[in-house]
């Protein structure tokens, strides 16, 4: 492997450092808006640029689809999550969402690095259909991660409002109604992406029997569809947020175990 390619691999280090700095700085933002928040936002931006360069380096160097392994998928997944967060995260009102998103991003990217998902090793998986399937599924799960971040923030802020915390107006948190609405929209978008991803996968690959990973994926889809229906019937606010977090627990814990362990 050429030294230039090795250098590209090392881009994961600045990405991790910048994401880590952002996660740390968001905690400072809890004390009030100011320098910590701006440092956090710049950490997200710079880290995302470094990770983008890393992904470009991987795409340019590797034959076939570079993110077919579980660790590679995780790398791409983190990039999608942080990219989606950047859409909202840079506005002061939604900045605190980073408090729930960035620690997850740091942990998952570190895991991807440890698992070799940020390297430039050859991968036997290739093909446009696989790329589309993985990208759609990961984008869908990235959206669900964001929705879970919003739900966590909702539960936290709702609890503060219910308890009449004196400092409730000191920390700049997105309005409850907006968190509830945006989380629902993120779920709708994610369900569409997941459905498309499953469709591409089903149409393109020969699979064996109906396995645990597929069962869990359908369970996740069913859970989120049920959430949307119940929300329409009046299950809004805290109940919807808790259901959202339950669904994300399936995504975060069960799916990797069933999908990648094999």
């Amino acid at each position: 492997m050429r030294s230039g390619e090795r250098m590209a691999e090392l881009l994961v280090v600045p990405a991790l450092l910048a994401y880590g700095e952002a996660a740390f700085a968001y905690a400072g933002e809890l004390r009030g808006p100011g320098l910590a928040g701006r440092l956090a936002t710049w950490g997200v931006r710079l880290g995302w640029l470094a990770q983008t360069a890393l992904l470009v380096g991987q795409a340019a160097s590797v034959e076939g689809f570079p993110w077919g392994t579980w660790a590679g998928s995780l790398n791409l997944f983190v990039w999608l999550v942080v990219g989606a967060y950047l859409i909202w995260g840079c506005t002061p009102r939604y900045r605190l969402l980073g408090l729930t998103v960035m620690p997850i991003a740091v942990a998952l990217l570190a895991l991807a690095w440890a698992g070799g998902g940020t390297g430039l090793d050859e991968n036997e998986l290739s093909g446009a259909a696989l790329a589309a399937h993985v990208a759609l599924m990961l984008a869908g799960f990235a959206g669900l991660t964001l929705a879970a971040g919003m739900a966590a923030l909702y539960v936290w802020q709702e609890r503060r409002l219910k308890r009449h915390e004196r400092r409730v107006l000191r920390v700049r948190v997105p309005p409850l109604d907006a968190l509830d609405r945006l989380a629902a929209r993120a779920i709708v978008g994610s369900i569409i992406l997941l459905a498309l991803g499953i469709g591409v996968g089903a149409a393109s690959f020969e699979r064996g029997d109906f396995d645990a990973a597929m069962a869990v994926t359908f369970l996740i889809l069913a859970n989120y569809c049920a959430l949307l229906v119940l929300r329409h019937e009046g299950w809004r606010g805290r109940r919807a947020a808790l259901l959202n977090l339950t669904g994300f627990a399936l995504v975060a814990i069960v799916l990797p175990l069933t999908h990648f362990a094999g």
Partner: protein
Amino acid sequence: MKLTLAGVSHHNAPIELRERVALDLDACRALAQRLAQRLEGEAVVLSTCNRTELYLVREEHADDEAVDALVQLAGDRADDLAAALYRLRDEAAALHLFRVAAGLDSLVPGEGEILGQVRAAFEAGSAGPFLDRLFRQALHTGKRVRMETAIGESPASVPSAAAALAQQVFGDLTGHRVLLLGAGKISESAARNLRSRGAEIAVVANRTLAHGEDLARKLGASALALDAVATELERADVVVSATSASELVLSRESVAAALRARKGRPLLLLDLAVPRDLDPAINDLDGCFLYDVDDLEAVVTETLSGRRGEAARAEQLVAGEADRFREWQASLDIVPTIASLRALAEEIRDRELLKAGGRLSERERKHIESVTSQIVAKLLHLPTIRLKEAAAAADGVVYADVVKHLFGLEEEERRR
């Protein structure tokens, strides 16, 4: 150019005096024009309910003119004015304006209205290059303080805390319906605060319908009897209650019944009455947030202490901006010296080139012209930088005098 500020403010002038010297925007414009013409300089008049200040700029300080103008405004209260008047110059005046724009000199620290008032005064004033720079930087400072600190975000009164809580639940209040229970002054004050943030005051419910109708007319709402609010409870987003009833006006059961029709939409209830109007158990209902006066006062107390903490951070920002302005002002003093020095060097170069001109070919002349030009530029580069740096420090004037003396710039200027 010298900056002079004279004015009175809420710190040391009672309202009787402040209203005497207060001016509307047209009067500020007219006075600024008169003063600028008389001084052959620049003038801006800032007048709000808390202060009236004159900012004047000309070659020398204009304290007398500024005081005279205020004395004329004060009329027969000129003696009181003398006791309350403050006068500031240059750096101190700039720092004062930056603090004013940042809301640090306001009655409620961090209040947001002052920034718009400073902008209006600037636009109505007769500002030249100096005051243009000063006021633009003041506006920039005010914006920075509001963006980089939380000083302006925290509510300073119970009605504004109530409105801020509504925004915390619903975000933008535009189109959100408010149900008022009670038609007294407290209800009205809270309603006006919510309406100023975009909320729609939909219904005023009062035990005496006629009183409710009066307030409803003022707020563009409809009126209801207090015992007929169940339907409106299903549609409202915010309920503000401030009746003088001695028993509960809304029970947990009546709100729970309305919640079924609300399809999970959150409901914020603000109980501003003592004794309380709303059953405290309402807060236990899913999607309901109930705040009474004590809760709101606790929030205000906390946010006011937060404002004081943020004010310390804001003061640092303002001091930094004031330093930047001082450096800019000092660089203005040194610019003529630098220009004279460069003009002298160019003049010497031209003279010597002229002397040698007859003995040189065209090609040689161009070559020597280029070389000498570079020598002059390189020789003066470092002194120019150092002079600008010295100008920003306290000893800038000394440096300028030394340069003038060493190079005979005064004689050169006189000769020219």
